[in-house]
């Protein structure tokens, strides 16, 4: 689904002494079936923006469109319900949303809320649990008896089971070890590739993730759009990123250093995977 934001602004606690402008003058257009990453310093408004995309917050100014739906200041809660069926949201520490007696029942909560029959819900829930790598012998366990990483997977399955077209992920791997991180990022990417109706919007602090998975990167600063483009375009601008308090992926850093020290102008520094980086180094060494 195509997503646009037109002149969007959001202010927390409007008309109180705690008033806080978190987003202003925000304009964006995302094509159907794209993997978008949003990066930006802490407090730059990333979480605020993504919550506007499924109506958990309504813009104080401007409007957001998701496919044929519009979200603006006075959108009714009833319409937002339909939007939420299309736009799934995985929050930071999603395991905090688990509540039901068993893993399977918890995953079925979403699809049943969105009108699926028990049987359908069970079917899709099992499918999603398999996708995230939860074995059937855990289905009848209490979600509170799982390990942290398992809980995270169950919570993600709970959102995938809604069968959204757009999946929003707000730092989905915060607090996981590198392996757990890698596992979940791969599962999510696999889900994205599963159909060309699906889109992902990933909020992350890890430049490596943004460069490896995303096709489009949005850089935010102080509630505004600071930069936008493909990973190659964005990460070529090291100086501008650093001014915003952001870094570049390690692979790019390495190749940049190599280019600088060796003086070899032919080195292409914008490589995001380990494989590509090694190839570049090998070709520099003349050993390809």
């Amino acid at each position: 689904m195509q997503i646009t934001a037109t002149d969007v602004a959001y202010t927390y606690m409007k008309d109180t002494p705690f008033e806080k402008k978190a987003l202003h003058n925000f304009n964006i257009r995302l094509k159907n079936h794209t993997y978008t990453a949003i990066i930006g310093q802490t407090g730059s408004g990333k979480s605020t923006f993504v919550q506007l995309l499924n109506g958990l917050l309504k813009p104080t100014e401007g409007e957001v469109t998701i496919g044929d739906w519009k979200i603006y200041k006075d959108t009714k809660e009833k319409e937002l319900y339909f939007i939420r069926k299309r736009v799934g949201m995985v929050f930071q520490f999603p395991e905090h949303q688990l509540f039901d007696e068993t893993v399977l029942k918890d995953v079925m909560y979403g699809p049943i809320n969105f009108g699926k029959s028990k049987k359908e819900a069970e079917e899709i829930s099992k499918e999603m649990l398999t996708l995230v790598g939860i074995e059937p012998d855990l289905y009848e366990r209490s979600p509170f008896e799982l390990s942290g990483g398992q809980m995270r997977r169950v919570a993600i399955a709970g959102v995938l089971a809604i069968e959204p077209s757009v999946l929003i992920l707000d730092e989905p791997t915060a607090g996981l070890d590198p392996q757990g991180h890698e596992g979940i990022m791969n599962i999510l990417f696999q889900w994205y590739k599963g159909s060309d109706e699906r889109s992902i919007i990933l909020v992350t602090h890890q430049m490596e993730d943004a460069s490896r998975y995303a096709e489009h990167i949005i850089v935010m600063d102080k509630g505004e759009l600071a930069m936008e483009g493909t990973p190659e375009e964005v990460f070529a601008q090291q100086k501008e990123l650093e001014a915003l308090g952001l870094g570049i992926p390690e692979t790019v850093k390495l190749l940049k250093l190599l280019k600088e020290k060796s003086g070899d102008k032919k080195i292409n520094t914008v490589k995001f995977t380990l494989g590509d980086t090694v190839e570049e180094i090998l070709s520099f060494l003349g050993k390809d």
Partner: protein
Amino acid sequence: MLDHVIIGQYVPGKSFVHRMDPRAKLICLMLFVVFLFISRHPFVLIGGLILTTTAFYYAKIPLRFYIKGMRFIVIIILFTFILHLFLTREGPAIFSTPIFTIYLGGVTQGGFMATRLLVLFIMASLLTLTTTPVALTDGLETLMKPLKKLGVPTHELAFMMSIALRFIPTLLDETAKIIKAQRARGANFTQGSLWNRLKAVIPIFIPLFVQSFKRAEDLATAMEARGYEGGEGRTKFRLLTWLKKDTYAVIVFALYALIVLIVKIGGGN
């Protein structure tokens, strides 16, 4: 939804009331509450109104914000007024229909009770609006000190209160987050039958409880790890300072108390 509740909230500021010693504020509030309710003489209420207006003025709380947060309280007060209006049968009838009659006594009684409640609430809310929870518990603990001789665990009581106060914003935050997460999964708290709405609350309360227990455990471990052993021999990092203006404020409220007493003894009601 939870954004506009002002009960128990602190609004940072540098006003006269903000800078008062929490002990002075507590004493003033206690005097005010006790003596406002001692007598039904109109003078007492008028005096209370004047004190409240003055205190509110000196607290410099933004009026628009305050009024927004008062909505719930105003509904309760209106309800009190209406109850009195219909249930009191005193004085001449001023309005009558075949179903009910309103008497003059109802209007004055209702108005009296409503104003009393309003004044009481404003005064109490000023205390929490202008005092940090930490200062509030420090103040309470010092004021309760005499009770320690009677074996009341004053430090523990104050400490419990400060922990509770400390976690109210955290809990509200967490509730808001969980509500959002479940709404994203299609939860609907505003539609359907009463039973369905009640059921919709379960997915919020269970995670909230689970989190709270976890947090309590973590807190206990962290306190133990840092050698917490209760109140005996503990010194304070923040010291309360009593200034002249605190004395003046207490004197003003004490004078009010005195006047109320005189009216009460002299006037008989």
